Every structure is written in C-alpha cells, then in structure tokens.
C-alpha cells in the first residue's frame, strides 16, 4: 500500500481509476460509478448509525431563498464563498445585446439580473425558516442531504466548489443541544474509525473573511463552538476535515424567531459529513479498488 499523501497523488489516482472525471474547471469534476457507489453506501451507513434517533427527513433542492441568505448574516462572514443565481429577464430587443456580448467572447454580466434564489452554502440553511415559532417540548431533529456550493476553485481534489453534505440539525434548549453535541462528538469519530479510518477530532474555527474574521474565529475557538473530525487524505501532517459540528448558540433562533416552550430563544446546532471527502478518505486509506478493501470495512458498507 502506497502511503504517499499529496493533493496531486490523490488527484492522479482518482482520475486514473475513473473515480473522478475532470471537466477542465477546478472543483466541479464528475464522479464515476464506483465513486458514487461508495459515497451512497457511506451515506446509507450514516443512516443506519442514526436510525434510532427519530429524525425527520427533509430534502431541499440545492437552492436557497436569497432573503434567507441575507438574513442569516452568512455574507458578513463568508462573502467570498457564496454563489448567487442571475438570469436574463429582458425582452427580444435585449436578447440581441446579450447574444452579441456572448459571441464576442466578452462579459455578459450586464445582461443579467439577480434572481430570488442563491445556491445553498450549507445543507442546513433551507430548513431554519420552517422552525419559526414555538418548538415542541423535544425540539426538532432534521436529517438532510444536499449539494452545497462554495466559490473556492482549487486544484486539491478535496476542495470542491460543489459537493454533498449529509446534515443533521438540532433545535432545542441549550442543554438539549449541548447534550446532542456531546453525543455526536464521540459518535462521529467512532463511526469513521469503525471503517478503518484514522480519524481524530479537534476544536476548529471557520474561515471568516477579513481581519474582523480573525476576531470571529478567535471567539469561536475560545467557546468551542465548532469541532471537526479529520482524516489524512492529501497530507499526513495536515489532515482533511471530513465532518464538522457547529454550535450556533442563539444565532438562528434570534434571526428566525424560534422559541422554546418556556419562551426563550431556542439554540441550534448542525453537523455535516462531507460525503465526497469521506469517500476520498476511504479510497486513500484502503486503496482505489473497493473489492480489495479489508473485509471488516466492506461488511459495514456492503451489508
């Protein structure tokens, strides 16, 4: 087993085995049949781990109400990552200008207007407005999966612009949310290790934009609001975060007027498994050919 870790090596191996299909733009490569099979089986494995939790499954398209993005303050923190959707809203006369600009190879931005939808920057965003009001005694637990978009073109195969996340969202009193977090802190590491992946966890911070961002990150670290579970995928010394847990305190509760039965602002937290990164971690750790993986791992995924 080759133990060399580098972004280029992983990329080359994934391409050589047709696990990913380059398209000429970084971060939006295609996924091949075997890659997809592993990803879907990992996703199903997560379902089995969480099946007794009583979560409500919800599936949203990979688009978000633009006003929800604006309200959420995402753009104050990560303006550089968000992707908005623009469209042509002109008439036939305008079409002539649009076509000319496109065929001349120039910019056609001026011919488009912002629509009411944006791409989802995280899988959980679409569900928060539905929590507005008083939550039930046991709060909410939602099970979601979606494509998310982040404008981060990169040659690293683990840093994609469009990728899928399996997400769980918890809404409740601070005690309920913190308990849930403590449960998942251990569960996330255990389930990845049960697949033979050398997972470690640590407190982490988000890449908030700018100087103010450093202050937000210091805040987040100090209060242990975020933790990540990492696995070496493109580097041994700098393992890749494949799972992150984010405690929002009252951020979304305040913005979306979510209250506990006692009338307090509800707390929320979300956790997400980066499905492509988890699949890549499996390929990097066990090899590019799943048929050759250890039986103990295969038994968990091919049940």
């Amino acid at each position, binding site marked *: 087993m080759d133990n060399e870790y580098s972004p280029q090596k992983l990329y080359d191996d994934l391409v050589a085995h047709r696990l990913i299909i380059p398209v000429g733009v970084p971060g939006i490569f295609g996924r091949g049949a075997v890659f997809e099979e592993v990803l879907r089986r990992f996703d199903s494995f997560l379902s089995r781990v969480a099946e007794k939790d009583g979560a409500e499954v919800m599936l949203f398209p990979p688009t978000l109400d633009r006003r929800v993005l604006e309200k959420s*303050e995402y753009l*104050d*923190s990560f303006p550089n990552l968000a992707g908005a959707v623009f469209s042509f809203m002109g008439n036939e006369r305008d079409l002539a200008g649009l076509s000319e600009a496109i065929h001349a190879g120039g910019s056609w931005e001026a011919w488009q207007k912002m629509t009411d939808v944006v791409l989802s920057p995280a899988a959980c965003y679409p569900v928060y407005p539905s929590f507005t009001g008083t939550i039930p005694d046991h709060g909410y637990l939602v099970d979601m999966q979606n494509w998310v978009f982040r404008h981060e073109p990169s040659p690293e195969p683990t840093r994609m612009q469009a990728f899928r996340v399996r997400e769980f969202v918890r809404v409740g009193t601070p005690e309920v949310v913190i308990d849930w977090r403590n449960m998942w802190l251990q569960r996330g590491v255990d389930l990845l290790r049960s697949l033979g992946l050398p997972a470690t966890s640590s407190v982490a911070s988000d890449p908030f934009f700018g*100087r*103010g*961002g*450093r*202050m*937000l990150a*210091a*805040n*987040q670290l*100090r209060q242990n609001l975020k933790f990540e579970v990492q696995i070496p995928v493109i580097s041994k010394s700098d393992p890749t975060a494949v799972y992150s847990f984010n405690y929002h305190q009252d*951020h979304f509760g305040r913005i979306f007027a979510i209250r506990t039965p006692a009338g307090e602002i509800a707390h929320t937290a979300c956790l997400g498994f980066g499905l492509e990164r988890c699949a890549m971690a499996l390929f990097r750790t066990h090899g590019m050919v799943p048929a050759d993986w250890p039986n103990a791992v295969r038994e968990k995924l091919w049940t």
Partner: protein
Amino acid sequence: MPMNEAIRDILKGHARLRADASSIAEDTDLYKAGMTSHASVNVMLALESRFDVEFPDRMLSREVFGTVAGIRAAIEELTAGR
C-alpha cells in the same frame, strides 16, 4: 474627547447593547448586554479607526472586548508613549 467617553460613544454606535452605553458599569459583560460577535467586530474596527491603533491577534478576544475596562486597558497599552 476623553478616552472613556470615546469608547462609550463607539459602543453606542456599534455594539447594539440593550443597555445605555454611557452609563453601564466598566465591568459589565457587554456580550450579556446584547453585543453579538458580529457587533463586536464592528466595535473593534471602529476603535481601531478612532484611536489609530491595530489590535494584535492576542487582543482579539472576549477578555478585551467583553468590558469597557478591557477595551480601555488594551487601548492604553497600544497608545502608551504617544
């Protein structure tokens, strides 16, 4: 404008406190009084601009920005000898 007054002036403009910034105690927890993380960033940037200082990373903390006393101590340290 004396430093204390200037600090409270900035808190009034940026901290979004529930209480009155001119009269809260020096050691009142500003976060408990309503200042969010984002508001604290705006406070930080406004203080830098007003006092012509740059807070080093070690000062970008709740200890410094959590109270009027903390803010004043940090600015006094950064402007010492001016």
